[in-house]
């Protein structure tokens, strides 16, 4: 019963979130701030994780290619496919669920316990729309950009392995990267990314918004936001993969 109550509460909140913003100029100013908070501030962690994971993936593929009949160009091909189809959209989204999700939940939760949300309500402003909608729109646009960037950096990580080790040559890697490319895989990855962005922001926003209590509850909400968003990302990853690729 509690699950149905929570789902109902979440849907009611989303109805408030998706209302028309009170004032367009204020909304655009907030949107720019959120682009910065969600996108630019996540840039560093995306680069670090993507480059190292890309390198590790190419090493693992090279290590497992023992059959001399399989060309080494497969390393580049497999690394690219792994980055585009799964690693960048899902892994980076899980990382961002931790970074961005906990930040949103604690920010909104703190505003709730310090009565800042009540202050907005009393001024006649829809707090759910004012606080969550700009984050949602920013995430829908910036999250795919981060993921595409992560794909490129991840592939570059594999390329670096080619330069610094004898596992494969750069030309073999690049040749593999150029083989059997299906643009639909990018489309599939971006659809997943947008869904994951919506999950991260709305779950974190919901967890922060419904807080009752004090600072301990802010911490709890932040943890719940990360855990629930991560679980939903994994579930929707399976559903979307089944729907779009098979």
């Amino acid at each position, binding site marked *: 019963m509690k699950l149905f109550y929570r789902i109902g509460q979440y849907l009611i909140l989303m109805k408030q979130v998706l209302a028309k913003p009170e004032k367009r100029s204020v909304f655009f100013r907030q949107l720019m701030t959120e682009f910065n908070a969600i996108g630019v501030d996540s840039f560093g962690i995306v680069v670090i994780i993507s480059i190292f994971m890309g390198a590790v993936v190419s090493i693992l593929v090279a290590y497992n290619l023992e059959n001399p009949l399989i060309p080494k160009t497969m390393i580049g091909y497999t690394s690219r496919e792994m980055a585009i189809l799964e690693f960048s959209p899902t892994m980076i989204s899980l990382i961002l669920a931790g970074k961005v999700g906990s930040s949103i939940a604690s920010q909104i939760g703190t505003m709730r316990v*310090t009565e800042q949300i009540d202050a907005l309500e*009393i001024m006649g402003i829809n707090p759910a729309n004012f606080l969550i909608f700009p984050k949602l729109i920013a995430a829908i646009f910036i999250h795919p950009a981060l993921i595409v960037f992560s794909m490129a950096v991840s592939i570059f990580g594999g390329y670096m392995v080619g330069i610094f080790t004898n596992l494969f040559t750069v030309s073999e890697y690049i040749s593999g990267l150029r083989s059997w490319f299906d643009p639909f895989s990018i489309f599939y990855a971006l659809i997943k990314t947008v869904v994951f962005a919506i999950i991260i922001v709305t779950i974190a926003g919901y967890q922060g918004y419904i807080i009752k209590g004090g600072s301990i509850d802010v911490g709890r909400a932040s943890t719940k936001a990360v855990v629930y968003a991560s679980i939903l990302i994994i579930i929707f990853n399976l559903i979307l993969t089944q729907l779009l690729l098979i």
Partner: protein
Amino acid sequence: MIEAKYISKFFSDTMVLNSISVKFEKGRNNLIIGRSGAGKTVLLKCLVGLHEVDDGYIDFDGRDFSHMNRKNRKEIRKEMGMLFQGGALFDSFSVEENVMFPLNMFTQMSEEEKLDRVNLVLKRVNLVNANHLMPGELSGGMIKRVAIARAISNSPKYLFCDEPNSGLDPNTADVIDELIAEITEEYNIVTIVNSHDMNSVLKIGDHIIFIHEGKVAWQGNRDEILSSDNELLNDFVFSTELTKRLKRKK
């Protein structure tokens, strides 16, 4: 004028407000007093619509606030200003941005006009050269003054103050009381202050409502409160050592 008629509020099975009827008039400092847990904050939150009443209604100058839809309520809310117990300033905004916020949201003023208005209200609460400070850099008294400035920046008709003196030293509390009283008179607004500070009661209480166990147990003004024969009120008013001594002297 704000009028609450027979309002009741339950939390689960607990009745927190029991058929309260009370009028708050314009140009007067209306104080709601009572012990902790008496229902003062719930009453204030019902008046501003943060809690829905389970019975009765609240009327703002002839407009039934309790039974309005969200859109119509919004129009009345634009006429409200509220000072929260902790100030509730927006952490990520500077003092200037906090005070300018209602103007940004609800007026078509130019940037220059908004800045003039912000400077005027900040001057009114005796805060000059504080425009660019962040809430984290302010003292308790300054936070309350910025919150008052934000509450009055859009010229409200109704001002609500929840425990404006909590956490302040007696001198600063006195300054805040004076400021609230002056603003009430100057802007001729309905001011409702939720307090259990007897200094405030005696200093600015034009109309005092004593709440006990969710009911209005006594109403009067600051001159009548010390001579009342209401036992519940006397227990509350003369509960501190200072007031007890004052009573003995009298």
